[in-house]
């Protein structure tokens, strides 16, 4: 595949790995967090870890949109899905996320009309084709997917489709990063910045990381060559005593972001005062709701939802995994009580979750050298 294979080139990978090796200060252990779940997935899928010396450790961050959804929101979604006449649409990843009383897949098997869509526009099409049904889209994701939800809502209004509504679970990336950097048990040397989020918000919102916390950030693409080059750029910043936001993914990410997307989001969404994150607790101004102008398309207004806060299961250590404090296998239930087919925690459900990635792809002894 053109424009893809170039970024999966093994020869180029070996060259970059050699250059990374040259920047390592012998005996020092480096911890670099990839913020984005897409990066975590790619690292395991291509075995990027195998090309790094063992003392350059990649720590998996909180940027998996499925992993951060708390149980109460799943329950609220299922409650709407069970309402008579509702067609509940959702991205496939969400189906196996457990709520307090089972998953959406369970609710579907028990009779709720829950359908997988690949885009919010598919949900709108279903609404158009079923004018006598209420069609609800369960929106999740960071700033990456929020613009497509916003555009769908604009389209619904423009076309006068009144049987469509959105249950909004969109979240923003900066508040959890700040919360993470404030946590005392964290020791990181740098960040691989979120590539897809940055296509929308740009690189500027990440500047607080070097400015306030003195950590380098490199916004990265999602192919294995991108990831190795980003690690190299971070290692060079560390070696040279620099600390700034750099953009490895400039073929896609403009430094200032996508102004039109931001404009549409500002029109359709408003910040929630606070939102609960799985394992991280409540974080203020970290999520989006529909703006007052779009209130009539808000599923949480149209339907009554229980809105009950459900505590994370005691055994589950998703929070510590999301913060990179423990590795997936260090969780007490990892791989035994909690597996991808019967997950307790969200990190084990999404293919972008750190636990699922490690369980599915990384569950064997590697051979790497310490420098």
């Amino acid at each position, binding site marked *: *595949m053109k424009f*893809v294979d170039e970024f*999966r*080139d*093994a020869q180029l*990978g*070996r060259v970059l790995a050699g250059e990374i090796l040259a920047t390592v200060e012998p005996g020092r252990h480096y911890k670099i967090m990839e913020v984005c779940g897409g990066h975590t997935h790619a690292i*395991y*899928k*291509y*075995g*990027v*870890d*195998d*090309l790094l*010396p*063992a003392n350059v450790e990649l720590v998996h961050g909180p940027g998996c949109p499925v992993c951060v959804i708390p149980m109460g929101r799943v329950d609220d979604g299922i409650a709407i899905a069970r309402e008579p006449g509702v067609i509940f649409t959702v991205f*496939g990843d969400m*189906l*196996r996320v457990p709520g307090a009383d089972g998953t959406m*897949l*369970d609710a*579907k*098997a*028990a009779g709720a009309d829950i359908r997988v869509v*690949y885009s919010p526009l*598919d949900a709108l099409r279903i609404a158009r084709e079923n004018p006598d049904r209420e069609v609800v889209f369960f929106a999740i994701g960071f700033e990456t997917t929020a613009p497509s939800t916003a555009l769908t809502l604009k389209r619904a209004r423009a076309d006068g489709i009144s049987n469509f509504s959105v249950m909004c679970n969109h979240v923003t990336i900066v508040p959890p990063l700040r919360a993470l950097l404030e946590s005392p048990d964290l020791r990181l040397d740098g960040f691989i910045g979120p590539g897809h989020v940055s296509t929308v918000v740009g690189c500027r919102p990440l500047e607080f990381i070097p400015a306030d916390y003195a950590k380098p950030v490199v916004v990265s693409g999602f192919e*294995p060559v991108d990831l190795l080059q980003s690690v190299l750029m971070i290692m060079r910043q560390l070696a040279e005593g620099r600390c700034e936001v750099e953009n490895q993914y400039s073929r896609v990410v403009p430094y200032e972001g996508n102004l039109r997307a931001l404009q549409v989001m500002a029109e359709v969404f408003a910040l929630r005062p606070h939102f609960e994150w799985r394992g991280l607790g409540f974080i203020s101004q970290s999520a989006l709701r529909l703006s007052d102008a779009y209130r009539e398309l808000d599923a949480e207004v149209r339907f009554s939802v229980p809105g009950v806060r459900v505590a994370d299961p005691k055994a589950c250590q998703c929070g510590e995994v999301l913060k990179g404090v423990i*590795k997936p*296998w*260090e969780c007490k239930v*990892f*791989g*035994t009580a909690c597996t*991808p*087919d019967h997950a307790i925690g969200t990190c084990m459900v999404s*293919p972008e979750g750190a636990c699922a990635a490690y*369980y*599915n*792809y*990384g*569950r*064997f*002894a*590697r*051979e*790497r*050298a*310490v*420098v």
Partner: protein
Amino acid sequence: MPHPDTLDEREQRVLDRIETARGRRPKFRDERITMAHGAGGKASQTLIEGLLVPAFGSAALDVLGDAGLVAAGGASLAFTTDSFVVRPLRFPGGSIGDLAVNGTVNDLAVAGARPLALTLAMVLEEGLTAADLKAEVEAIAAAAVAAGVQVVAGDTKVVERGHADGMYLCTAGIGLVDERAAPSPAALKPGDRILLSGTIGDHGTAIMLARGEFELDATVESDTRSLWPAVDALLDAAGPGLHCMRDATRGGVASVLNELARASGVAIVVREADVPVNPAVAGAAEILGLDPMYIANEGKLVAFVAAEQADAALAALQAAPGGERAAVIGEVRTEPPGMVLVETAFGGKRVMDQLVGDPLPRIC
């Protein structure tokens, strides 16, 4: 001086515990059937090994092969059945009628048996047009001729509108076990080469595109065909060196390899770069976030052949119809037992696990 990064002892203990848990016979604890139970991955395995095998316990079933072997009056026969629920009924490269014949014929072929005869049961939905029915009956007849089998018995039922997607088909097949080899999972040996009979993912991709849900513009044809000619050629070329075969249908090549690694307690290593994939399939999989290794095939087999016979077996496969792109994609090793590892084209390694859940629509 660089020294090897030995795995943390605690981590190794966790991994060992997981492998022990995975090695146990799964228990069927689900409250309802979900689509995942039909997807060919872990949930399907739990249903089969946790509910069906214990209930019907027989030596033939315990092997969990594609067909059961029965001895009758001195002849060794292979016997199997399969049902077909694909939507749409017709798709580029074939139709439900082709699948109903080839699916069952292939289960016999990879058990090392020459397919002889089929039975056919049809569940028809009220309102199905006679033209659609005739087209499928003709497809079944033509596929049976091509595969060299006869349809010797049948049954029809009609259900009310809304209770079947046009038609469901079920075939059972009987074949004569070939004496040139005795393929079985127990015969897998470290050092065996893994042969794949051609490109992967064509059937599943063709169905997904034919459903028109993705607005992807590509031409991919189903690979549905009888595998007996390929098996016949392998039996000639490798003889007893042909240790095991599977047709890589639902759940794809990855699921077949996982089943065998688990059943035989060996490690299987696949070189990703050597696995043939059509560019259109690779492109569609990339866009949809799927791995072609998990996408269904309806005319591809995986064969495990002793290293000494591997070259001859590969040449035979490549000369068989539809085998032009056959390749050696990996080998059997001892460590880590029960697991399938991939050497990625990028130069790393990862586990290739069983499929969890159901990322794909119904396809066969």
